[in-house]
């Protein structure tokens, strides 16, 4: 089960980044083995459509679920089209989020949590 957590730093002790499209790092992690890869977000400085571009990026990494602070409508639509579940409202250290995810205490979002351009 591969998940993507938006992170302010590159390791599992980093805090979750509350923005999806313009997060600092994407941490792609296998929830069972805890093997992970952290990737600096190449889209931070793009001017527009960043949520879409980041969603496309994450979908190419074949993740099932994205866990982040907030997710706007374009990113949400793109992720859902790629059959990726979205969980927003995540706070705290990345490794704790993985634990919460495994325990089943995180709920999948039915729709975007914020309006467009929220993370600018």
């Amino acid at each position, binding site marked *: 089960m591969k998940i993507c957590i938006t992170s302010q730093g590159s390791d599992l002790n980093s805090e979750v980044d509350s923005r999806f499209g313009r997060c600092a790092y994407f941490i792609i992690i296998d929830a069972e083995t805890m093997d992970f890869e952290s990737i600096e977000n190449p889209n931070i400085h*793009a*001017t*527009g*459509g*960043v949520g*879409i*571009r980041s*969603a*496309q990026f994450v*979908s190419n990494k074949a993740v099932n679920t994205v866990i982040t602070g907030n997710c706007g409508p*374009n990113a949400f*639509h*793109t992720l859902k*089209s*790629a059959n990726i579940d979205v969980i927003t409202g995540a706070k705290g250290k990345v490794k704790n989020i993985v634990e919460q995810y495994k325990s089943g205490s995180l709920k999948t979002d039915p729709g975007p949590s914020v309006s467009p351009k929220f993370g600018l």
Partner: protein
Amino acid sequence: MIISVASGKGGTGKTTVATNLALSLDNVQFIDCDVEEPNAHIFLKPEIEKKLTVNIPIPKVDESKCNYCGKCADICAFNAIAVLGEKVLVFSELCHGCGGCSLLCPENAIAEAGNKIGIVEIGKADNILFVDGKLDIGEPMSPPLIREAKKYINTDKTVIIDVPPGTSCPVIEAVKGSDFCILVTEPTPFGLYDLELAVELIKKLEIPFGVVINQSDIGDEKVEQYCLNLNIPILMEIPFDKDIAFEYSRGIPIVVKKLEKKQNFKNLYHQIKELVK
């Protein structure tokens, strides 16, 4: 000759200067490129003869031809296309209509469908040929509409372009190709700050320019000082006048109420002609 009337700050009197200049000269074409809030028609009162729909091309993907290579998403500077496995999403509100995706698609799977963004109106106000663009409410992109309005430029005329405020893409689209640009400002810190931005922009576009100071006798001296320091010609000063403001609020231009003021605007034009030589 094409004269554009711009300003950094909004509400300094662009439309006032542009419409009064148009009414003071012979053989004029007026193009209102302030397509988000066109209001020159309030003062010039043209009879509109033609209304033309303006579309921008939005990609339409034929998924039976598409092999999901993702080139269209890669090329799009505005991230208006996403390719996800065997699915293509088009975000038409982000598309600038450049056509790059359809040009690059190796499978020829992208056609372009028209997406209406506004209209161009063409008419006449007495002897003035009149063109304006009206952007549809909610449409984020005005440059393609400005470009369309400017297609009707008639260079046999003295063309006066009313430019939107600011210093971003719509301003550049409206101003480029002009022989001269009038920058209208007011003698306030806001006016000066935005004038400085506008001057930087017009210098980059390498268009000769000069300044008109509106409500010149109220406020401070800093705009004048700035122009003197940078050798920017001050072409005209319009003192504050309650009569002008009153008539303006009723949609009546200065030179219609006070015929003698036409001479001031004619002088403005002659100065520009000298500067463009």
